[in-house]
Every structure is written in structure tokens, then in C-alpha cells.
């Protein structure tokens, strides 16, 4: 498993709920290799987003280990995780979360801007990525001037900007119609495969899940094969 880029061992997470604690994840083991795509399905409230947040280092598990590449991420502070996150992984959200004041190209470049700087290489890459997601002509449009599908494509390009090892996509088609959603998933799978980037896709959509290399179900705080 030398090509494993993201690995979690026995991740557990509970939340306080009144006087009690609510167990969301109970010893989740997970691994994804470079270029591999994995889907995670589950009912609402099953802990899919919680798992994604733990994998992204946005939140701390109560127990378990997390490895980013070969590095023991569970031993890093949240600040250290933040410093590494921008280069190690990219995230795609259901609500796109584009910055409304800057155009599509600048949104894609924002990823590079936040981890180092912007030079000709980064400008070329952002333009190439926009072209790859089919928005070459829309680079200077503000997010408000783009359709939902176009916004999600920009978000995909932004997530790929820093050549991350992993893309974590949290229900990326949740706000899109079926056809546009299919297009976005197809695009996401294609570009991740091209760039040998691992893809972890959280989705409710069975058809989308089936397009990934591996399908997992999150039930009762445990991951199982779907």
C-alpha cells in the first residue's frame, strides 16, 4: 500500500448531546490510494461530513490515527494541519463557496495565493484548469454571473489548483439538477484520474457512487462496503 495517500485507523468521534454523548464514528478505518476514487454513502446524520472533516484535519477525532501521505497527521496541531492542508488536499462543497468579489479565474488562483504565491506558472495552470473544466471563456465572470454547474466546475478547478494528493468532495451535486450533477461528477472523476489525485466523494446519489472505484457505506458509525 505504498501508494496510499490518506489513511485513517480506528477514528472515533462523539458529540455532547445534553447530558449524554452521541457517538457518530466508532472506530472507522479508511484508506485511499493515489488516483483512486472512493464514494461514501449514508443516511443523513450518519456522520459522513464528520468523517470528511476529520480526514481534512478540520476537526479532531476523540481517538484513532490519521496519516496524510506518510505523515502522522493526528500528532499535528490544528495550526500545523492548516499549514499543510492547502497543499495536501482540496475540498469541494455542496454550496460551492466561491468568493463572490473575485472572478472565476481569481477564485481558482486563490488556492495558490494561500499556500505560496501567484506567478506565471500558477496563472497558466489556473487558466488550463478552467479550460479543462470547460470554462475557458468564463474566467473573468464573477460567481454571480455563473450557473450552479459552472460554479461547481470552478470549485473543482480551485480544489485541483495546488496539485493536491486528495480531493474531498462533500455532496458536490446536492445543489445541482440531475444532468448538471452527472456532468460535474464525470468531470471530477476524469480530472482526478488524469492528475492521479485520490477522490473521496460523499454522496447520496447511488448512480454517482457507482462511478467510483470503491463504494463504502457509513452505518452505525462504521464503514462497510456498499
Amino acid at each position: 500500500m505504498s501508494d496510499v495517500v490518506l489513511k485513517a485507523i480506528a477514528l472515533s468521534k462523539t458529540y455532547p448531546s445534553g447530558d449524554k454523548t452521541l457517538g457518530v464514528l466508532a472506530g472507522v478505518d479508511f484508506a485511499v490510494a493515489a488516483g483512486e476514487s472512493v464514494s461514501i454513502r449514508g443516511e443523513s446524520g450518519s456522520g459522513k461530513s464528520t468523517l470528511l472533516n476529520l480526514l481534512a484535519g478540520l476537526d479532531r477525532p476523540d481517538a484513532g490515527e490519521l496519516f496524510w501521505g506518510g505523515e502522522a497527521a493526528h500528532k499535528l496541531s490544528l495550526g500545523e494541519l492548516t499549514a499543510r492542508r492547502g497543499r495536501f488536499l482540496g475540498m469541494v462543497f455542496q454550496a460551492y463557496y466561491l468568493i463572490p468579489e473575485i472572478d472565476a479565474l481569481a477564485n481558482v488562483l486563490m488556492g495558490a495565493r494561500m499556500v505560496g504565491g501567484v506567478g506565471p506558472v500558477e496563472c497558466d495552470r489556473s487558466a488550463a484548469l478552467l479550460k479543462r473544466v470547460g470554462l475557458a471563456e468564463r474566467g473573468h465572470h464573477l460567481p454571480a454571473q455563473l450557473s450552479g454547474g459552472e460554479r461547481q466546475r470552478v470549485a473543482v478547478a480551485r480544489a485541483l489548483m495546488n496539485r493536491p494528493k486528495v480531493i474531498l468532495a462533500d455532496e458536490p451535486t446536492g445543489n445541482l439538477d440531475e444532468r448538471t450533477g452527472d456532468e460535474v461528477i464525470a468531470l471530477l472523476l476524469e480530472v482526478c484520474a488524469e492528475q492521479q489525485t485520490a477522490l473521496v466523494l460523499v454522496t447520496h446519489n447511488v448512480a454517482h457512487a457507482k462511478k467510483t472505484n470503491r463504494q463504502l457505506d457509513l452505518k452505525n458509525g462504521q464503514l462497510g462496503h456498499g
Partner: protein
Amino acid sequence: MPWPIYLALKQLFPSGRRLPFFTLISVLGVGLGVALMLVSTSVMGGFGHQVKTMIIDTQGEVQIRGRTALKATEALEKIIASVREVAAFGPYAQGVVMLEFEHRPAFPGVQGFDIARIKQVIPLEHYITEGSLDDLDDDSVILSSQLAYGLGAHVGDKVSVYSPLMLERMKANEVLLPREVRVAGIFRIGHQQLDSSTVICSLRLMQDLYGMDRLVHGYNVRLKPGADPDHAAAALNAVLPAGAGALTWFEANADFQAVLSFERNMIFFLLTFIIVVAAFSITSSLLVTVVRKTREVGLLGAMGGRARDVAACFCVQGLFIGLAGTAVGLVLGFALLHYRNALVALIAKFTMGQETFVKFYQFSSLPAHTETKDVVMIIVFSVIASTLAGLIPAWRAAKLKPVEALRSE
């Protein structure tokens, strides 16, 4: 460009979109504060500058005073002339007399000057509104405008002068005869105190009235252009004999200057609150922005943005508002100063009428004098206040946890 600065700039001045209302209001708030501070300090500075000019024009830049009356000897004058900065000087004597014209009395201050030398020291002729300084001799006086108006005296009229010396003589049962002098001119300086109750006469007449023989109370000294009054006064004090001392115009009017300076500082202090209020409005608007952009703040964290960089983004917005507001305020302030007289005329026209305005406020044009250090102080204060205004929103943004911010509705 570091991303917090880039994002702050884009959030305040987004490309391809109209200026956000929040930016416009915040910049205008700071701008109005800066403009008001600039105008008020400049106008106060203008009054101060006018007073300074008036003092120097009536006393010279330096005054030599004796602890008692001085003997105006050639030796003393040689000593004064030996100081490099001195351009011209003339003796003076001063006191109080009683003036009477057509049974109307007045008790003005009187200044006696050496008429032959006074023009080189004090440009009195600039302030003569009726008559002429050339007509002033040992049997005539020049009255201040309000004094002449109060007495009803005009140029050519004869007024009676009673001096304290005459009272001394009256005690010795001597016959009290006033000195009859002709009004040779009327002056108006623009300073209420001097214009209301001052008489100018020749030094000899003053010496006669006070029985001073050849004694004088001091010398008014005009310095060479560019000479420093403090330095000149120090040089004079180094060579003057005991019993005589030199004071700069500022020292000679220290109390009055202190009042002016106090008023100016108080106005500056009070007006700083306008910028403080503007800074609070920036804080409030940026706090709303932080709440509105909670999920964006979360996104920045998810993309690898450190909390301190997220905080810097909001702090920098305060700084940019301060810079833009200060620039707007300076332009507005200097424009208002440029057109101040037209504005004053307009206000006077719609309120009390221009003539009444001039009568009560003693000026027909608003003076203004802008000091570089005042402008620098205003800029520094407004930029610092605006930047500090961004601190609370920045702290709040930095405290947001990305995972919670992304989850927020």
C-alpha cells in the same frame, strides 16, 4: 501580494462591480471626520497666524523691556544694533491716559513711538484707515477705530488728554490743564482689544505726558528676514545691560498664546471624537461582514488559511478604509478651505447678513493657515483609529473554527 491584503482589497473594492455601500459609507465617515479636523485646525491656525502677524506688526518680533524705565542712550542702541539678526529698532513708551472729546471721556492705552524710526520697525501705515501717519507730530494722536467712533472724533478734531502726571500736579494744587491734541488719523488693526481702546502718539508727546524726560519703556525690534526670534532674543539678552531684557513676540504675549493654543488643542481633541465615531461604525460594519461571511471564513480555513491571516484580512480592511477615507477627507478639507470665504459669505447671506456678520465677528474673510505637522497628525490619527476599528472583527473572525463556520446556516 499576500492573500489577506489581496482579499481585503477585493472585498472593499470588488473588480467589475459597484463600490459596496459599506465601503462607501465607511470611507465617507472617515473622510468627513478628517475634512472637519483639517478645516477647523486650519481656521484656528489662521486666527493664530493672523494674531501673530498683528502682534509682530504692532510690537516687532522682539521687544526689549526694562525692569524700570530705560535711558535711551546711544550706547544702549549701539549694543542693540550690534546683534546680527536685528534689522531695525525703535523706542517706545506706554501708559494710560484720559481722553475727552465734547464731554465724552475715555481711558485708552497710549503708545508713544519715535515717528522717524517707527516705519522701519512696525508697518503702522498699513492699518491707517483715515488720515496719515505722516501727519503725526508732537501735538497730534492717532486713534483706534472704535475709540474714535465712541468719542465721535474725526480726523482734524481736537481732543483733550489728561495724564497721571497731571493728577500728581493737581495734588500739589497746581492748575490742571489738559493737553489739546489734534486727531491726525484713525487706525484699525483687526484686533478687538487694540481697536477698541488705543492711542498712538509720538514718543516725545508720551514722555511729556508722563514726565519721562528721555526715558523709554523699551524698544520694538524688527529682525532680518528668516531670523529666528528665539535666537535673536537670546543674542540680545547676552549683550544687554542689567535691568533690560529681550522677549520674543511669543513670550511677550505668552498668556494670550496659551489661550489660543488651548482653544486649538481643545477643538482638535473634541473633533477626534468624530473619527472615533467613524471608527466605531467601521467596527460595526466589519462585524456584520464577518457574520455574513462566516462560511467564507470557514472556506479560507479549509483551504489552508491560518487564523492570523484571516484576522489580518479584516484588520487590513480597516486600514484601507482609513487610508481611502483620509485621502477623501484631505481632498474635501482642502477644497472647503479653498472655497471657505464663498461658503462663509453664503452662510452670512442666509443668516444674519454679511454686514452684521463682519460687525460682530470682526472679519469679512475667514483666515486659514495649515501646518504640515497638523496634517500629519490628522493622517496618523485617522489611519490608526480605522485600523484599530478592524481589530475586534478580526479577532472574531480568527476565533471562528472552520468546521463550525462551514456548518453555519
